[in-house]
């Protein structure tokens, strides 16, 4: 089921069920705080090379990824009785060179950290996709929001294997919305110079 439900009284994070349709993603705005529930697929540098090769050779996304969400992450091995070890977002811009092609082929959302290229912003607007930012370094906390993990492909890549994770209220922010609006372009500007008001001898 795909939906986006605002928090009670318009406060609190928006609940987003995955996989999300483009209609639901279109209701989200850059800056929205969200919690994500449903399946995502981990993919980072080496995984992206495999996905692009699969896309080139078959003409479609491998492993039934059309309509799904990619999480840029390589977890630690499972521990403490949990399905996933520590799991946090890795830097999204390293995946930028592959992202427009993957969005065109059917990936509807991505999760990572940090700013992305203008090409990714344009691709989000063109294909109605959303880029969510999770908090880098909060990997012990984020792992508490993973209820199941299953390796789908490329186990030889170790932490870079394609793994399907089931998320339960995984906290994130809408960084680039389906109109191509980018929180990273506006948030720092909004606060630029504000720290100096409290003092500092700059």
């Amino acid at each position, binding site marked *: 089921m795909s939906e986006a439900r605002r928090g009670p009284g318009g406060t609190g994070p928006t609940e987003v069920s995955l996989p999300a349709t483009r209609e639901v993603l279109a209701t989200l705005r850059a800056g929205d705080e969200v919690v994500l529930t449903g399946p995502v697929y981990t993919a980072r540098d080496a995984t992206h090379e495999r996905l692009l090769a699969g896309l080139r050779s078959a003409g479609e996304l491998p492993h039934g990824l059309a309509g799904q969400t990619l999480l840029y992450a390589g977890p630690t091995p499972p521990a403490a009785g949990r399905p996933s070890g520590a799991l946090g977002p890795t830097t999204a811009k390293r995946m930028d060179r592959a992202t427009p092609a993957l969005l065109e082929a059917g990936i509807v959302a991505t999760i990572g950290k940090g700013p992305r290229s203008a090409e990714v912003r344009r691709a989000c607007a063109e294909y109605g996709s959303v880029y969510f930012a999770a908090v*880098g370094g909060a990997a012990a906390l984020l792992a508490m929001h993973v209820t199941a993990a299953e390796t789908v492909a490329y186990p030889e890549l170790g932490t870079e294997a394609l793994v399907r994770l089931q998320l339960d209220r995984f906290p994130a922010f809408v960084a680039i919305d389906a109109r191509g609006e980018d929180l990273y372009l506006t948030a720092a500007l909004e606060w630029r110079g504000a720290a100096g008001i409290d003092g500092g*001898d700059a």
Partner: protein
Amino acid sequence: MVGAEAIGSAVYDAIVRAATTLRPDALAAMRDAEARERSPRGRAILGQLLENARIAADDAVPLCQDTGSVWVLLEVGEGECVGGDVPDAVNAAVAAAYADAHLRMSIVRDALMDRANTKDNTPAFIDIGFRSGTGVTVTVMLKGGGSDNASAVSMLAPGDGEDGVVRFVTETVARTGASACPPLLVGVGVGATFDKVASLAKRALLRPIGTAHRDPRVAALERRIAAKVDALGIGPGGLGGTVTALGVHVVTAPCHIASLPVAVNVGCSAVRSASVEVA
């Protein structure tokens, strides 16, 4: 005499502690950041990072999934003799600690020619220095890839002076800081030579956050850079705010009359290091 096995054992203990426990000074700096951050989103992110530190310590799980490359600094007392194959003992300790503590294997065999994972997080990157007294101080830093990627070196002209250093550090953080898991600990090296200045910047990350530099001129430079970095507005998680740096630490050194080398080594919010004394 200190044996290689004792050094390996210290490396093992330091890795496990650093991976799962936020440094006390970093924890205090994070709490201070939460109190002075003015962006509501920034405060929410700092709240997540503080909760993350609590979970990691309580459950003995890694703070961050990027459990890093291992940098080992051995400071050998001038009256000490070290016996045995130290690199071998250090690498054996890295392999054992990463397997036992369920840490992530993040090292490839060759940067360009063979990016196959070594599957035991070796080799460690080892520096050796000397200090007074006896024994060996073993310091381990686990360096995440995202924050190391945000680092930079520049060979300035002497005439660029303090203003040039401030500008280079600020521009580096402006360009790369949002992807490096802020709030950041910004390590700055100034001086030495092209190859050594980056090491100075890395060592700057070891100084406890909140302690003042013993040279008041350097302490003033640190405050000046910190104000500039916070004024960038990058904020916690890079999503806007008034706290971009948990601290700015500068290490200065002698250098050539023609040079003003400067390096920035960015530490993420989960700056991870631990030291063990081996007698």
